[in-house]
């Protein structure tokens, strides 16, 4: 499975249920080890240089990854400390995702969409260079989708790359540069331009440093 993403490029990842999209994202995020093949993020191998990769990657998964018993603000403050970023931006991030009215409320009572928004706020704090979004529009209302798209465009403008898992292209219109489809464990290329196919060893590909390369 070969896929190369350039800096500043937003790639949509399609594929039918159970084809391995989430698994793929988790491998790139260093949360799973691929049994074969290599994957490089800005020149670092996800298998062996996990820590370097984690400096670049922001992952928005199926699950919110929040602490139910901390408030929205405390959750972000914890994330900021762990990421090594100043806590100053927290209120701005909360405002941006429209959660100021529940800043000090515990996440336990949040609805599915509110939790997704808070996860988004964490990504906003982090401003990763490679964004991995797994069905990011689930549970988000129209305003939420607009927020998400705004954030993606912003990162894009700053030269970040993104891979977005999607089933429905409509909400992502205007932010996705191109789409690829996973089929039977391979990338099927709708637009063949950007991809180097490596017939001999389809599981391994090395990419130039400076780009987010995923093979």
């Amino acid at each position, binding site marked *: 499975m070969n896929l190369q993403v350039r800096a500043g490029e937003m790639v949509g990842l399609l594929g*039918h249920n*159970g*084809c*391995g999209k989430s698994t793929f994202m988790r491998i790139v995020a260093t949360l799973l080890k691929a*049994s074969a093949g290599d994957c490089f993020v800005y020149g670092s191998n996800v298998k062996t240089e996990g820590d370097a990769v984690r400096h670049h990657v922001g992952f928005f998964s199926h699950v919110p990854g929040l602490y139910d018993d901390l408030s929205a603000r405390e959750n972000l403050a914890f994330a900021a400390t762990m990421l090594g970023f100043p806590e100053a931006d927290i209120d701005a991030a909360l405002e941006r995702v429209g959660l100021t009215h529940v800043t000090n409320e515990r996440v336990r009572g949040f609805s599915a969409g509110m939790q997704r928004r808070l996860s988004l706020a964490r990504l906003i704090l982090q401003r990763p260079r490679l964004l991995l979004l797994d069905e990011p529009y689930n549970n988000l209302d129209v305003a939420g989708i607009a927020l998400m798209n705004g954030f993606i465009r912003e990162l894009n403008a700053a030269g970040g790359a993104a891979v977005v898992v999607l089933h429905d292209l409509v909400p992502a219109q205007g932010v996705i540069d191109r789409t690829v489809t996973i089929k039977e*464990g*391979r990338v099927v290329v709708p637009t063949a331009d950007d991809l180097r196919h490596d017939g001999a060893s389809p*599981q391994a590909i090395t990419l130039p440093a400076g780009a987010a390369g995923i093979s």
Partner: protein
Amino acid sequence: MSPAPASSFAPPKPTPVWLGWLTFAFFIFTQIYAVVTSPADAMMGHLQKMMYVHVPAAWVTFAAFGVVLVASLFFLWKDDERADLLAASAAEVGSMFCGLTLVLGMLWGRPTWGVWWSWDARLTSTLVLFLIFVGYLALRSFVEDPHRRGQWSAAVGILGAINVPIVWMSVKWWRTLHQIQSNPRGLSPEYLRGLLLNVAAFTLLTVWFIWKRYEAARLERAAEHASQAAALGGYNG
């Protein structure tokens, strides 16, 4: 369909079965030989003959858990799935022999000590060792992801193997009812010959069991790999 990920997981060629029968025959022979040649003990009478199963069983237990230790360290170091499977096989066989040691020891203890069990250091530490590896096997069965399973059980196996020297030394460190290690030279030759032969037979048996389990485990893993690949391959598998 993606190609089979790790070619090392072509299932191994099966070892011929007659090797197993040979091992088993040797074991029967050494048992009969030892029982026939050794005279009745002054204190224990013919009960002494329990030694030919109890003591070798205990020793191969240690050896098997030693294999677990080495294979686990190797797995963490080299990340070679085969080492993990070897550790698992050795742990299974070791637990079996550990259980055998316990049962045979209890059967022996009843007529000689008058009790099935006593809370002395050798007996209890052996029981604890057994329980630790029961936990090890339970851990393996509760974890689905093979890589994760390998790393976790390696950690548990290494920590568990710490207890082998404790069992070994328990008779020295604490005063126990149980026999302390005897010097081979202190044992009269008619007992020693039978014992050593049986230790050899038990060792062969252990190697055979571990090897068979290992082969089976590799077949299971190869199947797991295949089904994983099929799952990632999607509907048409």
